[in-house]
């Protein structure tokens, strides 16, 4: 358990992706089965473990500790699991033991409700502080370590010298403690065979169109489609098994029973999950904000299903029935897809329409003024391109519509992580609004990228020379009408938000330009942002 706990402690505090991968790969190498497989499951979110109520943990702690001292401790630490892990005093004779992660899980999952109290007390006694913390986070479901399932798979790929797409393909066909996976990665056995055909296949991704990219390309070699602002999915129905996967391969079938129930064709398709009506039902496609109401839910109420009906706008097909068609060209696959969707449930499926164009200039104009506000740009697909996993440059491009822009004033700055830890690189920016008779700045977002290294030097210097106050790692920066730092902020969308004081939330804000030529009085007003939302809303309800 100790090695697992140490791994978690390191992962939580390690910002760099490569360093995380290294920590994970080293752990997989040094830890025997089945512990490493359970650790992988805990990190990738596939571990099933008996839950323990926080009230029980608190009770157990107070059996041995003064309540006032516990309260002081909890107030100071602010996290129940961590507080208990730190204040717990084990009887001296139990120290030095290190039960394995798998034995801890086994005992938890085989103990009846009546004995759980005794078991948890025993486990807390025999684990050291870090392991105690890991254990408490596991049983209270609060394990957040900043490692995605995708990153864990990349670490497995590095560890075994295999391609991550092979691991993705296997992933949903195997289960903890993943012994056959590790046996294959260590070269001891051949690749595990899939027991279930409806597994996830790594999706094909596009690269952004960059300056000059299109100059050498012929418009007639490409098809164009709208890029819809929903979430990219993969829908499978093979061998009697139906699954809906997110772009990263997470199984989200349970969240979208309306889609799964309507699925009446066999195969695997690629598409965009959206909320609202399909094109052929003549109802509008609704915004990403509406789609968000449906995401990440364990249970879905009938009202949810009615108010936010989901549908699939199909882009591509990977398997036509059991037949793998990924090696065919885009246009051939599209013919197959079109036939399938035509016959499918009209309220739940439609085909992403192609956009007619003759020149790149045509397309540029269409991209800037799309006919639907839920469109975020154009996709370009080479007519003869096979469906290849991952993001290769050439066959598919994405050409996003121009972002929104505002001028905002820097208000707070925080030091970055890793190689940026000596720079103030995370910025909170604000715009003007009326507060009674006064004009004040209200924070509207945070950005920590978009600028060049040279621009960062300028920003960092300004922060250091114009700090008014410090709160821990955060500095508040001088920002008055006649003195401060104005930046041009670009973002992809804007929504109303009750969680933010300003009432607005931006999507993907970044610092597009430093406007040293402007003074804060010239920055935008909150009214401008609210108007952007109103314009979007008006367009959606047309």
């Amino acid at each position, binding site marked *: 358990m100790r090695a697992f706990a140490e791994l978690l402690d390191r992962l939580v505090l390690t910002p760099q992706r490569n360093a995380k991968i290294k920590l994970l790969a080293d752990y997989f190498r040094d830890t025997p089965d089945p512990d490493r497989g359970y650790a992988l499951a805990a990190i990738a979110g596939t571990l099933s473990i008996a839950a323990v109520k926080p009230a029980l943990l608190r009770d157990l702690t107070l059996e041995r500790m003064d309540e006032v001292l516990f309260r*002081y401790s909890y107030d100071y630490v602010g996290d129940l699991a961590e507080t208990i892990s*730190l204040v717990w005093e084990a009887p001296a004779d139990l120290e030095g033991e290190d039960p394995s992660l798998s034995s801890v899980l086994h005992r938890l999952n085989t103990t009846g409700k009546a004995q759980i109290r005794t078991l948890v007390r025993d486990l807390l006694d025999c684990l050291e*502080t870090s392991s105690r913390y890991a254990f408490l986070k596991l049983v209270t479901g609060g394990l957040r370590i900043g490692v995605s399932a995708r990153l864990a798979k990349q670490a497995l790929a590095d560890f075994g010298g295999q391609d991550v797409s092979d691991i993705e393909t296997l992933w949903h066909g195997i289960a903890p403690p993943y012994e056959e996976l590790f046996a294959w990665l260590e070269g001891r056995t051949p690749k595990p065979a899939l027991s279930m055909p409806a597994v996830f296949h790594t999706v094909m991704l596009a690269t952004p169109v960059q300056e000059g990219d299109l100059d050498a390309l012929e418009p007639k070699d490409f098809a164009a489609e709208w890029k819809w602002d929903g979430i990219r999915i993969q829908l499978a129905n093979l061998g009697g098994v139906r699954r809906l996967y997110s772009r990263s391969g997470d199984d989200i079938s349970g969240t979208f029973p309306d889609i799964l129930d309507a699925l009446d064709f066999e195969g695997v398709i690629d598409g965009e999950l959206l909320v609202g009506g399909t094109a052929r039902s003549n109802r509008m496609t609704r915004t990403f904000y509406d789609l968000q109401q449906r995401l990440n839910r364990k249970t879905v109420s009938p009202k949810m299903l009615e108010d936010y009906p989901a549908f699939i706008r199909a882009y591509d097909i990977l398997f036509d029935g059991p037949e793998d068609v990924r090696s065919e060209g885009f246009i051939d696959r599209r013919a197959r897809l079109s036939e399938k969707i035509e016959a499918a449930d009209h309220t739940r499926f439609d085909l992403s329409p192609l956009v007619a164009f003759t020149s790149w200039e045509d397309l540029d104009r269409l991209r800037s003024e799309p006919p639907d506000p839920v469109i975020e740009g154009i996709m370009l697909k080479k007519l003869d391109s096979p469906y290849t996993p991952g993001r290769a440059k050439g066959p598919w491009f994405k050409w996003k519509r121009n972002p929104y822009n505002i001028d905002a004033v820097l208000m707070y700055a925080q030091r970055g992580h890793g190689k940026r830890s*000596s720079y103030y690189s995370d910025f909170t920016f604000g715009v003007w609004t009326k507060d009674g008779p006064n004009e004040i700045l209200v924070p509207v977002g945070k950005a920590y990228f978009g600028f060049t290294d040279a621009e960062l030097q300028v920003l960092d210097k300004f922060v250091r020379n114009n700090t008014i106050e410090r709160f821990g790692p955060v500095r508040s920066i001088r920002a008055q009408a006649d003195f401060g730092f104005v930046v041009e902020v670009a973002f992809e969308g804007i929504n109303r938000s009750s969680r933010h004081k300003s009432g607005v939330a931006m999507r993907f804000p970044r610092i597009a330009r430093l406007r040293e030529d402007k003074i804060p009085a010239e920055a935008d007003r909150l009214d401008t942002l609210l108007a952007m939302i109103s314009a979007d809303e008006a367009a959606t309800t047309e």
Partner: protein
Amino acid sequence: MFWGMKPDALLYPTPKGLYCAPGDFYVDPVHPVERALITHGHADHARSGHTAVMATRQTLDIMRIRYGEQFCVSEHVAELRQTTVINGVTVSFYPAGHVLGSAQIAIEKDGMRIVVSGDYKRRADPTCLPFEPVKCDVFITEATFGLPVFHHPDDRAEIGKLITSLKQFPERSHLVGAYALGKAQRVIALLREGGHDAPIYIHGALTKLCDYYETQGIALGDLRPATLTGKDKSMFAGAVIIGPPSAFADKWARRFIDPVSIFASGWMMVRQRAKQRGVELPIILSDHCDWPELLATISEIQPGEVWVTHGREEALVRWCALQGIAARPLHLVGYDDEGE
């Protein structure tokens, strides 16, 4: 118990620090005074500008290194475990185990003995003498880590984390934040004990103090200035660099390639603290007592009363109350309870 003298008459808190009226001297005063007794060389306890200063030889040396020759008008060396009488008050110094030169000060008159512990710790430290418990009527303790959450782990296992990381990330520089007096030298000494023989690079703020430790017989091995010679940043790859924590937010830190940010402090016990500071590898290493050590010390000394100076006094006072030991907070100002 009969006390010939009330403890409050012998020593009491004032805005300048603890004051002994019969002896007319202060202990660790935070403003300039006529006569100061100093427990140890950390800046919040040992300030410059007093007229007469009494402290251990090493503490006086450290004050001279930090403040220059003019740090006071007259120096008086306190020999450990020997008594000196000041205006009818007997004072004596005993090792406190905090940093090199650190001492507790026992103050005695008319059968009443008060021990001011300054800052102290109980576990072995290769860079200073161990704490010696002294029987007393009133024990004045700090409570920097006076909360049940603080259980500082084994020093060697903590340094082991750093040694493991050096093997795991040999291409990255390992930047350790440690206070210039005491902690830095302890980290170096523990690394040497752990078999790390390679040169260790140090920030300029550490040079004089490390040199001084060497003269006191504490071997720190091959130390070099953390200064770039030429433009080759790769000289710091896989190396340990030690500097005061304040230097890490500074431009100084930019010379190191892809650094692993490390902080050696008792505060690293709490994950959120590490996270807030952007620490990637926390090393829990404290020059103060953790909670069990505070309790064990009070139980061992069995003072009639406990006074708590700075830190998290409310929890320690609560614990004393539960044990039936008279205790009260002193609410002294000017001591840095974050300084670790």
